[in-house]
């Protein structure tokens, strides 16, 4: 530290002005897209445009002010990027709701409730920033978070509370409020738990056991936590038929284990365990096997016509193919023909109307958010922050990879929310909290360390 004090630390710029400009730009792009939809579909600017613009713009300004006051050193890019993604999702859902109401994807798209949830999400983002002044407080809640995560994860299985929708039991009903997807919040709690747990145990877990070929195997007794997480993930898969969440949680745990222990062996063990579990599940459950068949040969006519076959995936691919390089233009394609175009398949719907160009931009937006999150992790000053920021960034990237990869037939399709785009309140709220945590940590990481107080006798303050 004395060296640091001797030379002036290069101060990271706050860049609040740039952030405000980018935020305004994001809101403007969304407004433009919104107007585009109206002009293309009805020949007029949508009547709700002003309300829409004012509420989104106003709340963004409020979020910006909160951020400027309570996290002044925070990364300037994260909030505008997420605003743009969220806004594009809103526009797509609005666009879907405007098409022929005989189709379920048009009927079930509800732009107003999605806008409402976005606003609540932004409020939660601000509240998190205001009340969570030091994210390291979360480290003390490691096991509480773990328990909470588990409870949330299994809550849909509780009779009367849990509900099964579209074949997956991942919902709980809250009287008067509708449904909630607790797994989305469990995701947050479990990443906090993983980070806290690994900070405490990483030295033990990093101990090498036997060496096999080029890999140092961990000691057998340290396999415990991995096996437990594996078991829980498989449990989610089996009990709730939720392939996506299962893959999401287990993958994130393995990634964090690797980051914490620096042992590749954990990754290999993790992959083997998951592959074993998947094969087992494939043998036991028809729906897992079918997903795999569909993945291998989606255009097979027999699979296409089968109930729960490849028709949905193919509709998404057709949409993207019809969009081509430049897309049909907002409001000028037929994304309403894709089942679940407003949720799982919103990426394909966007691909039809904005084309390859739009999707590359969209993927770039996600990649930038993830990259800013990982930078925060690199710059963080304590292991818990590193693991938490790394874990939250990874889970975001991993989630985008699983759902977008599934929709584009890169990997077998598993139902997951496209972060910030898919219709659904739970995911929006959870992801806005996730972003708030990243912003909070980036503020802590970029804040210049307090300078040593000079000329005060022998007392020196060290930043740990």
């Amino acid at each position, binding site marked *: 530290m004395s060296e640091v004090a001797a030379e002036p630390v290069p101060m990271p710029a706050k860049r609040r002005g740039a952030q405000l400009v980018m935020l305004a730009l994001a809101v403007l792009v969304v407004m433009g897209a919104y107007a585009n939809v109206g002009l293309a579909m009805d020949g007029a600017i949508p009547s709700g445009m002003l309300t829409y613009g004012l509420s989104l713009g106003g709340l963004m300004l409020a979020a910006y002010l909160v951020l400027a006051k309570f996290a002044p050193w925070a990364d300037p890019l994260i909030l505008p990027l997420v605003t743009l993604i969220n806004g594009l999702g809103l526009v797509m859902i609005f666009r879907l709701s405007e098409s022929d109401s005989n189709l379920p994807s048009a009927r079930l798209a509800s732009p107003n409730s999605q806008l409402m949830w976005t606003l609540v999400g932004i409020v939660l983002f601000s509240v998190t920033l205001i009340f969570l002044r030091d994210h390291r407080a979360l480290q003390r809640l490691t096991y509480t978070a773990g328990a909470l995560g588990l409870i949330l994860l299994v809550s849909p299985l509780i009779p009367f509370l849990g509900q099964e929708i579209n074949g997956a039991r991942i919902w709980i009903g809250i009287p008067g409020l509708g449904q909630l997807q607790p797994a989305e919040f469990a995701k947050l709690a479990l990443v906090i738990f993983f980070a806290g747990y690994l900070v405490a145990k990483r030295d033990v877990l990093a101990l090498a056991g036997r060496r096999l070929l080029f890999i140092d195997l961990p000691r057998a007794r340290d396999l415990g936590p991995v096996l437990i997480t594996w078991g829980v993930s498989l449990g989610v898969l089996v009990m709730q038929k939720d392939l996506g969440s299962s893959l999401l949680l287990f993958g994130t745990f393995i*990634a964090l284990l690797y980051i914490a222990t620096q042992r590749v062996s954990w990754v290999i063990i993790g992959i083997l365990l998951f592959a074993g579990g998947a094969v087992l599940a494939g043998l036991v459950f028809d729906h897992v096997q079918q997903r795999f068949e569909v993945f291998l040969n989606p255009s097979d006519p027999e699979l296409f016509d089968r109930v729960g076959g490849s028709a949905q995936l193919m509709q998404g691919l057709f949409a993207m193919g*019809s*969009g081509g390089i430049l897309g049909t233009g907002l409001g000028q394609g037929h994304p309403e023909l894709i089942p679940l175009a407003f949720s799982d398949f919103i990426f394909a719907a966007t691909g039809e109307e904005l084309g390859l160009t739009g*999707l590359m931009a969209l993927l770039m937006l996600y990649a930038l958010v993830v*990259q800013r999150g990982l930078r925060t992790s690199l710059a963080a000053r304590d292991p818990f922050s590193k693991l938490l920021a790394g874990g939250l960034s990874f889970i975001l990237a*991993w989630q985008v*990879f699983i759902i977008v*990869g599934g929709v584009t037939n890169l990997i077998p399709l598993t139902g997951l929310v496209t972060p910030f785009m898919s219709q659904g309140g739970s995911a929006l709220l959870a992801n806005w909290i996730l972003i708030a945590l990243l912003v909070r940590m980036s503020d802590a990481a970029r804040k210049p360390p307090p300078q040593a107080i000079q000329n005060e006798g022998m007392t020196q303050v060290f930043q740990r």
Partner: protein
Amino acid sequence: MNSTLKRTAVACLAMFALLMINVNYLQAVRAEGLSTDARNTRNFYDRYAVERGRIIAGGKVIAQSVETDSKQFKFVRKYPEGELYAHVTGFFSPESASAIEGTQNKLLDGSSADLLLRRSIDLFTGEPTKGANVEVTINPRVQKAAYDALRQSGKRGAVVALEPKTGAILAMVSLPTYDPAELSLTDKSKVFPRYDELAKEKGQPLLNRTIDRTYPPGSTFKVVTMAAYLEDDSSRGPQTTVEAPQRLTLPNTTATLPNYGGAACGSGQVTLVFALERSCNTPFGKMGMDLGYDKVQEQSAKFGMGEPLAIPMPVAQSDFGPREDEAAVAMASIGQRSNQMTPLQMAMISAGIANEGTVMKPYLVKKVTDAKGDTIEEAEQDELTEAVSTETAAKLRDMMVSVVSNGTANRAQVPGVQVAGKTGTAETSDNQPPHAWFISFAPAEDPKVALAVIVESGAANVGAEATGGGTAAPIGKAVMEAVLNK
């Protein structure tokens, strides 16, 4: 921990790279295949998304797109006089299109490369793309006259009329007909059963008899035999005499070829013009045998037979028939063997003679204009074949005039106009009454129209040689009158 974090960052980057590569693969490489997949229902909706161009005949709209209130189907196709023009316009069904709707589809829906400039301009001015309008050569008055006259016969049949000097198709009627509107609805559950119903109907209303099927030509083919005979020796003329026995003995068979109804033809020696006027079988059978297979076949080819033709709809191939024995040549020379002719081909023969021996390529599309009225393409008049010399054409014309003024086709006479024509009665193998044929052109000295009429099984209950003349010639007369404004 930073080293593993950096590797994790690389892994995340790799995941996004994979996604991006895959999206490129889907939307650039596989896009064409995916967007044209038959199961991609977008193609179905897109059919109704653009305002298709109109099909126009002589200033009259015969097919057009009308805007609807539906969000799914923005435009639907309407056919103001559907049944009258059905075989010209065709239909525009959810998955297919026929006739002009089919062959000119890319122009009508605006996707043709010829409309690239228009589309680019529309892109910048923000106007919705509209399809090009297709103007056909059909003359509504002639079409109506042909339709009404044929309909009056109460039989199945076809009428096709050409402008001899250009090849433009003035009328194209095939009965029974259908209503294209019924097959151009957006509701597949209505269109497909209706189509199956029409396809199974005995009268085959979906068939365009003028170009889609061939018939034995009967005595109308004698014009071709005569053309070959005159071309063979330029000294021959209408007054040249030929043998006309009551029965022609066919070599290597026990069969003989009689005249129609076993009647005598003159006094055993007749002039060519007399043989054509009376449509005697024996002299033509003899002429055919004297010429031999090659010469009659060659003459047939010179009238355009055996060449693939599209107007732009593909035309069934007409054919003189395969090489057989001499007896077969004799039969084929009177149009009663394996010769198969489309009515259009017969009209082309008539038109070739009318146009001093030159057969013009028949065409149906006169002009294509974009939505702003700029011409995209215009029909060119092409010579198809040089069928006979000018002299031969003149001789044939004079003889055909005589057929109308003195012979079997007297019912095609138009007051004040010289009409050239030839009747025909084609016997079919099944126990049906023979088909009645008539080909003609008028006015003989300056032809404005050449036509062919066939009335299926139309020769029933009409006496003697007046058959083709009895039912088909009056229909031809009505069409000629419509063209000549009589």
